[in-house]
């Protein structure tokens, strides 16, 4: 009798482990993956998907140790991480599942609408300190940033600041919601947020990456047709050997239904 039960339990565990998928990583991608997993589970009742956050770095190191099947990341895998995978005889496959655009925002009372990348760099590194230097009124600029643990912080630094460090003592907020709140009530404020967080309490800046020839407004269309420059891909990484296990879910995410969810969550679809 006992043996039978034991056998039954092992069988159950085996079937579970075949269909159970673990996804871990970036908090930016987390809401998207959760929605995708929910709707995937509705149509594929036999499978279970567990989704956890923790940050892009956490996800990729979990991939290294084999404690996750898919690592979700809001940044590209780093060279050092790739090397570590290689040493363990693994190879990471990279899939772009969506794009995320960052909007630079100011207080609605601010008259400035257009800024070039160079001006943004000077503002966030502390070289430009007053709005009148970029064609606004005589008002001190108060730049807001995300906390250092955020992937958004890293991306903005690499893309807009050309890898230079933020000014010493920049205001750093723990969440995007807090940035929106602060900017809506501080006259001289400037900050950066995900496109999905844009609302009428804050004003989006048109950005130019060609020294002021064309200024592009942040919008889903402009991000889609690649004219808006501050866009980052969101990735899934999986170990090449696990392809057959994770493929159905990834295909689902890339399918029309999956990409519709991408738009609903506020990201930009791949196709």
């Amino acid at each position: 009798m006992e043996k039978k039960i034991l056998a039954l339990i092992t069988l159950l565990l085996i079937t579970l482990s075949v269909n159970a998928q673990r996804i871990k990583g970036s908090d930016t991608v987390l809401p998207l993956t959760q929605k995708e997993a929910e709707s995937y589970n509705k149509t594929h009742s036999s499978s279970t998907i567990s989704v956890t956050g923790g940050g892009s770095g956490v996800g990729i190191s979990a991939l290294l140790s084999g404690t996750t099947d898919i690592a979700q990341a809001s940044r590209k895998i780093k060279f050092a991480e790739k090397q570590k995978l290689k040493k363990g005889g693994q190879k990471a496959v990279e899939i772009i599942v969506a794009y995320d655009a960052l909007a630079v925002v100011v207080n609605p009372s601010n008259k400035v609408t257009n800024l070039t990348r160079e001006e943004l760099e000077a503002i966030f590194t502390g070289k430009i300190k007053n709005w009148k230097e970029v064609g606004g009124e005589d008002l001190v600029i108060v730049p807001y940033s995300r906390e250092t643990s955020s992937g958004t912080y890293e991306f903005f630094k690499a893309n807009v600041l050309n890898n230079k460090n933020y000014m010493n003592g920049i205001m750093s907020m723990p969440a995007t919601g807090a940035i929106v709140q602060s900017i809506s009530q501080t006259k001289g404020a400037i900050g950066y947020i995900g496109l999905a967080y844009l609302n009428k309490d804050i004003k989006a800046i048109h950005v130019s990456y060609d020294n002021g020839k064309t200024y592009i407004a942040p919008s889903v269309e402009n991000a889609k047709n690649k004219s808006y420059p501050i866009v980052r891909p969101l990735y899934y990484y999986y170990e090449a050997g696990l392809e057959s296990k994770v493929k159905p879910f990834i295909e689902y995410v890339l399918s029309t239904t999956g990409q519709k969810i991408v738009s609903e969550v506020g990201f930009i679809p791949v196709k």
Partner: protein
Amino acid sequence: MKQFRRIVEKIIEGLLTVSGAITSIAILLIVIFLFKEGIGLFSSPAVEKGYALYVNSKNNVSNLTVEDIKKIFDSEVSSWKQFSGNDQEIKVFRFEEIFDIYSEEQLGVEYSLLPNKLGEIILQNPNIIAYLPIEYAPSEVLGIKELPIKSISINNFFGGEEWIPTATPAPLFGLLPLLLGTLLVSIVAILFALPLGLGVAIYLSELAGERTRKFMKPTIELLAGIPSVVYGFFGLVVLVPIVQKTLGLPVGETAFTGSLLLAIMALPTIITVAEDAMRNTPRSVREASLALGATHWQTIYRVIIPYSVSGISAAIVLGIGRAIGETMAVLMVTGNAAVMPHSLFESARTIPATIAAELGEAPAGGAHYQSLFLLGTILFIITLIISITAEVISKKQPNTGE
């Protein structure tokens, strides 16, 4: 039967001793763990582990401090002249740039050609400074030298005035802005909360009528139960704009706002503990004072407060403890700018807020991670000092009429 009871009692006594011992050991282990992780920072190299800085050997610069490295990579310094080198423009090269120049195929199988290509680039540009992983460093190529890198020193940490833990290639771990920020915010908070809290405690225990107290006490205790993140949200949405408008500041997220919010949060603790202490003054002591002809106020001031001084100091300590250790609320309203605090009306960053905000993505075992543990150790030492002071004060209490 008697025998049985005695055995049961012995067992219970044993269990109590064991649980006491386990608790003490657990606390000790936590402290040892904190210190062990934190101390590791001082043996970490000043640049990221596994990376080093390389220059052309024609460059006669040999010693760069962490601040110098940061200035170079932020293009704040443009010429080698400032570091007693040639009067040439500094060219910064980050490792990732190699992938913009060469494709993965051109770098050979397993990146076997990578060190040579990196070497070529350094040889071609005599004014270059390259930040490369040691594994792929062109160490065998002649004409290239590695800049010596010291490990993070105790002076850098305790005397540093800049906290930029994610700066590449050389992060700055300066404790001073965080420590001073923490002390500033919590001391000012206690200055607000103490007079107010003691006033309310005296009112509740001595002056208020039975009905008022029955209503007020639970209300105040309820305030202590509100989660701190809710306070933080309230602070961000309500307090920050008020501070900004009434004081006419460019930003509302200041150390002052944090102090104000912390004062509100510490009030319930101070009031409850102090009021309990005052109400514990024996009836005989009060009546003796009144019988000697003292007025109500004289009784409060000369008898009740001295009698309950140990309880009041406990209230103060708990209040300060709450203020110093408070994380979420402060994280949301002080703006978290890691600058040396010059005034109360500028943004400040506290130690707990730093740990909470940064530990999430700090790679385990790295210098950033260790520095956060060191911050935790410092926070622990501060609260330890406060507790010991309180103990000393309450033991020193004057004649309590016993």
